[in-house]
């Protein structure tokens, strides 16, 4: 809610000059366009002297930097002039570390990264970058699915889905704020962990978990601020993957989940349920740290 009044709403895109980076950039641009945010496109180059073996080579560093500048310029030209944007080159020990530092530097409310290569069947796999980022970021992180680059910026944000589990708190708050900024409808999704050891009576489990899911939705509804409309859906299925696959998804949709309860306060960490969701989800996922800013 505070997001609307804040002047500089910024989104950091972790860019690489490949398909994964294009996915991240397209998603970042789409969210930025829909929320009138400005885009900070960041390329993170490795710090040369971080190792103890290979001597630095300023000539090579300069060449890599020029290449990075050319790549950024190309990416920027591809975006067109509709989105407010700035290009940056930063140095860090790792991509994730550079992005977290950039998010702090720009006061960004969202960091967007692309999928790891090798995701099967067009679904998203968590790569080492996203994984490191999810363990260290204190701002929401958006994971672009494979192929996000094919969706035009004009597609906008057609729906914001909040995945509410036992404790809706920050996810709900973040989703409400994002939906409001983007003038997009809000949907509440209840997923209750149903992965149980084999041999347990599935009928009984389905019954209890459906009841729990309904309860979680009710809880989330009660927490909605006055005047905010939201549709609601309960995902059912034998497994999380199955339930996620059975739901309807709009191409321009975004899903928000909270980070794991195991994560340190204000740090992201993707829980088991969210990891399984991500595998099936055809749309981007935003992971919101517990007790942190809203995207």
């Amino acid at each position: 809610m505070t997001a609307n009044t804040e002047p500089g709403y910024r989104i950091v895109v972790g860019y690489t000059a490949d398909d994964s980076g294009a996915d991240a950039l397209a998603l970042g641009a789409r969210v930025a366009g829909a929320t009138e945010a400005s885009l900070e496109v960041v390329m993170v180059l490795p710090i040369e002297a971080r190792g103890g073996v290979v001597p630095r080579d300023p000539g090579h560093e300069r060449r890599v930097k020029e290449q990075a500048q050319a790549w950024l310029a190309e990416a920027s030209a591809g975006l067109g002039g509709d989105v407010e944007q700035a290009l940056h080159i930063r140095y860090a020990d790792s991509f994730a570390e550079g992005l977290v530092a950039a998010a702090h530097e720009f006061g960004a409310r969202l960091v967007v990264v692309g999928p790891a290569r090798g995701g099967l069947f067009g679904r998203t796999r968590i790569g080492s970058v996203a994984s490191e980022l999810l363990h260290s970021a204190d701002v929401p992180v958006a994971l672009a699915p494979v192929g996000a680059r094919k969706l035009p910026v004009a597609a906008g944000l057609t729906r914001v889905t909040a995945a509410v589990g036992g404790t809706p708190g920050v996810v709900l708050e973040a989703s409400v704020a994002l939906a409001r900024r983007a003038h997009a409808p809000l949907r509440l999704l209840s997923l209750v962990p149903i992965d149980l050891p084999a041999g347990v009576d599935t009928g009984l489990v389905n019954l209890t978990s459906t009841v729990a899911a309904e309860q979680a939705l009710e809880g989330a509804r009660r927490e909605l601020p006055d005047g905010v409309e939201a549709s609601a859906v309960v995902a059912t299925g034998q497994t999380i993957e199955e339930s996620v696959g059975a739901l309807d998804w709009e191409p321009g949709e975004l899903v928000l989940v909270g980070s794991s309860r195991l994560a340190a306060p204000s740090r992201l960490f993707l829980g088991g349920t969210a990891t399984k969701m991500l595998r099936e989800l055809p749309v981007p996922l935003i992971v919101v740290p517990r007790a942190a800013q809203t995207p």
Partner: protein
Amino acid sequence: MTHDPANQHLAHEAHSQPHAPNVPLTTASATVDGGDPGLSKKGLSAGSVGLIGAIVIGISCIAPAYTLTGALGPTVAEVGTQLPAIFLIGFIPMLLVAFGYRELNSAMPDSGTSFTWATRAFGPWVGWMAGWGLIAATVVVLSNLAGIAVEFFYLAVSQVVGFFGGDAEAVAGLVRNPFVNVITCLAFILGATLISYRDMQTTQKLQYWLVGFQLLVMIGFGVAAFWHVANGTAFDATPVELSWFNPLEVGSFSAIVAGLSVSLFVFWGWDVTLTMNEETKGSNSTPGRAATLTVTIVVAIYLFVAMGALAFAGLGSTDVGLGNPEIQENAFYYLAGPILGPLALVMSIAVLSSSASSLQSTFVSPARTLLAMGHYGALPRKFSKVSPRFFTPGYATVVSAIVAAVFYTVMRFISEDVLWDTITTLGMMICFYYGLTAFACVWYFRKTWFRGGRNLFFRLIAPFVGGAILAVLFFTTLIDSMDPAYGSGSNIGGVGLVFILGVVILLAGVVVMIWQRIKRPEFFRSEHLARGVADRDS
């Protein structure tokens, strides 16, 4: 990976943007833009390696445990007990050329190094061949490195197997099977390629330990050798004499040249400590000190270990005598057991870790040179491709790896003394491209020679004398190596294998160059990289 919050204050600078004029571009300067007045804290932390760090990198690049095991035998074969003298003399041309290298590097920092500098000084043809010489030298050393690593890998495994009561002999014997040997070597090269491609680097902290360990093991090796001599348990106790330091006792000029040409290799890589320090702008005393300390440590270790090995094993031609051709191409492999006894495993680990760091640093250099050559249009554009994820010269790295792998495989089957022959060939290639680089320095700075004593020495005298010594070494080696008995005695049809290798490598360079001249005439018309001459003092 530590993250220092104090380093988060970044300095920014605006850059003009050719494609999208309205989009601002900022870069955190990590001392990339040399001479940047607003050097940020982040930049300094990225750039300064400090005195100890510089020494560690220098020693890692020289990789004393690896180079000594490879060079000890071939040098002894040429100069006998005058090994210490030859090691000391071998340093002189390397030092002189390194001075020229440093001058060029500060005037024209470029990842193409010898290629770029020779092109600027002498034009595209000479420059192209200098680049080729550098790439050939590094590819040859890559195959030698991997070969040494294979031998010590099986030695280490056999030592572990023997410790647990297994059949150590059988494991150690695997290395003699050319197929097992080649496959293991290819696996090592593949591993090194992946590491290089993905830019995974050993952290400074780990490298400190590895280098410390390496030095400790070598000192321990020398001490143990002398202890055996004093105890009367040495294989062939040979008293240390002052004549070991007298090169005139070697006998023939040819033998001195052959010894020097091998000993160049033991100091190869040291020059990085000189150039590396150009970046530590904060302190002007670090450069010289790091380089001096590195070379002092390395020379002391070389002399101590070489003398220990000579005193322990003598020059006999049987068993572990250093005169035995069987053991000459990988001396520590055979000496570690007799000298260190049950602790021989630590020597294997020291050589392996030394080879591993040398593989890491060596891989970078041909790939970056190929990248520069691609960039300036001297080779296909593909070579200038930088990996979008790892920012390494991806294509060039893979090509270097494939060539090194093929080279090793072919050599393993045509030569009985692969490691020896590759070291000797390497010596010749080092003479070739270091020599050209030295002369490039002299010529490029010709207008500034007489502007002060500093210039006179570092831009004319030092590189010229160094280059001249290397030129003499190059041509003498080339002529002498025609003799089928030269070096290891490998030959094809009565012509020394080292000669054939040297000529084939250089002629292949000429052929590829002419082919590129036809395909890419722009470079050879100096359109991308023009000849030039320095007219400023520094």
